């Protein structure tokens, strides 16, 4: 049973994208190949939590985020939003539910329509979801949302266009656009990676403040471990479509168990001391088309054993809420 304070529960989620081939190739080969972008992922997000999904490009983290919102249909698995199996819902039901689950994209330069004013951008979701009855109500809600993301004074922003705003201000508009629907859950896909370091913290602070204020839970997708450490409560490390390690952020950072997590941590440059280490083999990521047998990380791992080539490790408990998928620890 799912307890009341679990807002999102994902069970053995898979998304395999079929590879389309040319006419001739498909005539002669019968085997359909797949890109196994997400290949059996399970986790839960508790209400009011910031859950970090961390990994390199191509590991499937964005696909997980989009499948949870059913922007992408999964191949198999289950996704529950407050106990509702969202994969069983019809199109109109999911549309109603999506008001409560929103997405913030990475690039505020591309995610906002350049020909719409800030008022229209933030007001649009209200009109689509028929949440306002008249213009006054709409203006009021838009202003409230702009105030929440600290665009001050909000009135002066209403008639502006995105190109008149800085990157940080644009990302605030993107947040306001999600916020105006009063969602309970937000997927934030690299929300600050396009912004300067000096203003990242300001945007993150707004997101965390809104979390406290409105009880929003976040799925925070990022490649930046340092950021994850300071923002997230829990963290999952993904590699080639699977979770390698998951746990409370401080447990994972202080005591990383999986060789991949260690390699990631070693590779993060630091401002105060030079400590860069490369503790991984090769520089070509494995392709999600031909996933290696056994542990999918074994060709790049420095501690590979025979078992790793044969058997896929399961995500097993180390202690408390800390789980790792590695034969070294089983």
């Amino acid at each position, binding site marked *: 049973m799912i307890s009341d304070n679990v807002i999102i529960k994902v069970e053995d989620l898979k998304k395999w994208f079929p590879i389309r081939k040319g006419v001739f190739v498909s005539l002669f080969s019968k085997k359909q190949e797949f890109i196994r972008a997400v290949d059996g992922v399970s986790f839960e997000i508790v209400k009011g939590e910031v859950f970090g999904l961390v990994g*390199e*490009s191509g590991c499937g983290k964005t696909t997980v985020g989009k499948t949870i919102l059913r922007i992408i249909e999964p191949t198999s698995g289950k996704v529950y939003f407050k106990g509702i199996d969202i994969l069983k819902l019809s199109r109109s039901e999911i549309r109603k539910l999506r008001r409560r689950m929103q997405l913030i994209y990475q690039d505020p330069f591309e995610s906002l329509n350049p020909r719409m004013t800030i008022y229209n951008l933030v007001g649009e979701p209200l009109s689509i979801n028929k949440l306002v009855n008249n213009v006054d109500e709409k203006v009021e809600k838009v202003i409230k949302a702009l105030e929440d993301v600290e665009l001050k004074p909000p009135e002066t922003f209403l008639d502006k266009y995105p190109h008149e705003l*800085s*990157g*940080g201000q644009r990302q605030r508009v993107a947040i306001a656009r999600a916020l105006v629907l009063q969602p309970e859950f937000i997927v934030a896909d690299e929300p600050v990676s396009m912004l*300067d*370091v*000096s*203003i*990242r*913290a*300001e945007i*993150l*602070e707004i997101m965390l403040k809104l979390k406290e204020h409105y009880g929003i839970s976040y799925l925070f997708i990022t*490649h*930046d*471990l*340092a*950021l994850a*450490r*300071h923002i997230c409560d829990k963290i999952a490390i993904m590699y080639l479509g699977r979770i390698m390690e998951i746990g409370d*952020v*401080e447990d994972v*950072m202080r005591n990383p168990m999986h060789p991949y997590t260690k*390699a*990631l*941590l*070693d*590779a*993060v*440059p*630091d*401002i*105060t*001391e*030079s*400590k*860069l*280490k*490369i503790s*991984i083999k090769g*520089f*070509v*990521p494995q392709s999600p088309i031909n996933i290696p047998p056994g542990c999918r990380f074994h060709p790049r791992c420095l501690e590979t054993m025979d078992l790793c080539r044969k058997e896929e490790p399961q995500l097993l408990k180390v202690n408390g809420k800390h789980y790792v998928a590695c034969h070294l620890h089983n």
Partner: protein
Amino acid sequence: MLPPSLIIDNLKTYYETRSGAVRAVDGVSFQIEVGEAFGLAGESGCGKTTIALSIMRLLPRNGRIVNGKILFKGLDLTEATLREMNKIRWKRISMIFQGAMNALNPVHKVGDQIVEAIVAHDGVEKREALERAGKLMEMVGLSTDMINKYPHELSGGMKQRVIIAMALSCNPELIIADEPTTALDVIVQAQILKLIGELKAKLNLSLMLITHDLSIISELCNRVAIMYAGKIVEIGDVKNVCRGPLHPYTQGLVAAFPSVREEKRKLSYIPGSPPDLLNPPSGCRFHLRCSKAMDKCRMEEPKLAKVNNTFIACHLYD
């Protein structure tokens, strides 16, 4: 001691626009020693890339060097003719542009693109250039047969290695790298940084590294200059600047930087946004965002002065 590789003296580069001159670089001086890795850091729009483009004399049409000298081995690049510049670009100073790996021509093999650079600048036979391209590929950690690959067959990190090979192709003395690892994943970034560091030591290159990411500079550079709104606010040894920053702006930048090796904490930030360089604020350009601003900061522009072993432009240390 050898004379410095590059001396920049009171450089001012402005962009003409219909509403007036944008003072992108406004009186910047520094020098890069032979074999030194020098970092240039600051937020977007602070003028770092404009300095690089001024050195290479590749400014867009509305950009103009209005004052100052850029001395490269005794030659003032601000006064060099096009012909002189053609002999310097790539052969003596090469540049790794931001996002260059995505600018590889998709319909040519990467080897041919390196060969093209070698033939154009060194005027050698194609066969010899091809041989050199193979050697360069090995030098950047790729196998020689990669020269027959097309860009789409390579990963981001491999493409960036090809770009580095290209920058090294004519044995330059100085390499300018503009955000060389920005679009790369953390492990690939670490590998590329390591490669740049090794090549620099092996070939005794001088390096100017431009990035907004202080941690990359901290890994790779000896000295760093922090820029704000077209001016240098702090310049000194990387260790001093990154571990004990003195200028309030540098302090803000360092504090905003999350470290993966420290306990969870509330990140701080610098409120506000950089000023409009059409009409830069009076006095210290940072005073509008500075928590320690005094009356003097609003009126009088601070000059770079030595405090301990670092140079700082701030009235707090007068």
